[in-house]
C-alpha cells in the first residue's frame, strides 16, 4: 500500500469517525494537544486501524509517537511488514 493511500485512509477516519475537524489535520499536528485525542479515543483508533489495516496497534510501540506524521510513519511501517 502506498503512503498516500495510507494517509488518505487515516485522515478519512480521523475526520469522519473520530470527528476531528479537517482543518486541524496536518503533518505536524500533535495527537494529544492539537487533535485532542485522549486515552478513550485511542482505544477506538486501535479498533479502526485493525478494521482498515488488519493489525492491532501495540500501545508500547506508540510511546514515542507525538505527531500525526509520526503516526503515518508507524502505520506505514507496520503495513509494509505484513
Amino acid at each position, binding site marked *: 500500500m502506498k503512503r498516500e493511500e495510507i494517509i488518505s485512509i487515516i485522515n478519512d477516519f480521523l475526520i469522519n*469517525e*473520530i*470527528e476531528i475537524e479537517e482543518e486541524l489535520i496536518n503533518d505536524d499536528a500533535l495527537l494529544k494537544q492539537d487533535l485532542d485525542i485522549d486515552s*478513550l*479515543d485511542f*482505544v*477506538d483508533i*486501535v*479498533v479502526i486501524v*485493525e478494521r482498515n489495516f488488519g493489525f*492491532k496497534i501495540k500501545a508500547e510501540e506508540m510511546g514515542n509517537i507525538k505527531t500525526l506524521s509520526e503516526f503515518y510513519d508507524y502505520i506505514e511501517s507496520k503495513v509494509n511488514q505484513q
Partner: protein
Amino acid sequence: MKRVVITGMGIYSCIGKNLDEVAKSLYEGKSGIGIDPLRIEYGYRSPLTGIVERPVLKGILDRRTRVCLAEEAEYAYMATVEALKNAGVDLDYLENNEVGIFYGNDSSAQAVIEAHAIVMEKKDTTLMGSGAIFQSMNSTITMNLSTIFKLKGINMTISAACASGSHSIGLGTLFIRNGLQDMVICGGGQEVNYLSMGSFDGLSVFSMNTDEPSKASRPFDANRDGLVPSGGAATLILEEYEHAVKRGAPILAEIIGYGFSSNGSNISQPSDIGSMIAMEKALKEAALSSKDIDYINAHATSTPQGDSFEAMAIDKLFSPHKPPVSSTKSMTGHECWMAGASEIVYSMLMMQNDFIAPNINFENPDEFSKNINIINKTTPKKIDVFLSNSFGFGGTNSALIVKKCK
C-alpha cells in the same frame, strides 16, 4: 415533610416521540405495535414489538458522548431534554445547582452481546472499543445523563424489573420529601433491539397475533394470548414545592403517595396481596380512601395471570366505587423498565387534557376483569387524582398516586 411536585415531563415511545404526539395517540387509541423482521431471523417465537425509531444524535452530541450511549440511554436523553425544557431548567442551572437523578433501567443487553461477539471473533478485548463498558452497564442511562447534564446530586440507577421506572419516581419523591434534594430527574428507559428480549420471548409469554399487531396487546381481555415487549424512555422532573414556586416553574401535579411491597414468593408470578399492599400503602401516605381515586392506570400487561391478579386486587380495594381503569400497554405494549415512568406521563397527559385513554382491544371480560370498570373507548373525564401500578419479576410492587395542583 416537604411537598413533591412534577415540574417537567418528556417522553420518547412507540406512540410518539414527544408529549404532543403521545397525547394525540392516547386520545386516538393508536397502537405502536409492529413486527421486527430481525426477531424472526434470530429465532424468536414472536416478532411483535413496539416500534421505536432511534434518534439521530450526530450533530447534537459529540462523538465521545455518543459512543458511550446505549440505545435506551439515547431515548432517555431525548425524553430528558424535553422534560428539562418544559421545566424551564437549562444547562447553566444544572451546572450551578445540586440536581439529582434516579432512573430505572434493568438491562443493556445489546451492548453486552455485541461486545462479546467481537471478542469471540478477535480474541482481543481492546477491540470492543471505548464505549462498550459505558453502554453495557445497567447504569448506562444515569452515568451518561449525569455527565451530559452536569448533575451534582444523587446519581444512581434503579433496577427493579418492570417496576424500575415507578420506583425511581418513588425514591426521588422520598429524597425530596425528606429534604435531601430540591430537584431530581426521574424516569425509566428500555432498549427495544432484538437482542434485548430473546430470553423473555423464550418463556412463551409474548403474543403471537402477527396477523393483527395492533390487536396483539389486549390487557384484561378474555382472548389475550400474551404481552408485547416495547420500550423507549420517559422522564419526569420532580421538585420540592416551595423551590418550584420560587423558581416560577410550571407546577404540573403533586406526588402524594408512593407505596411499595415485595411478594416474597415466586420469581415470575404476580400476587394480588402484594399489589394490594403497595396500593394500600400509597393510599395511606396520600391520606386518601379508595373513593378518592378518579382513574387507575393499571400495570396489566396482557398476560392472563398478571391481569387477573391485578383485577382481583383492584376489585377488593376499590369496590364498590369502581373507578375507571385502563392499561395503556394495550397501545404501547409492555415498556418494561420504562413503564412505571411512562405510565405516569401518560396519566398526566390524560389529567391535563381531561380524558381517559382507552384500554384498546378490551372486548370480552373474563371472570376477574368483569368486576372492575375498564374503559375501552376514549372517555372525557376530569381527573384530579390518579393511581398508577407497576409490578415486576421477583415480586417487586410499586404504586404511585398523583394529584392535580390547583
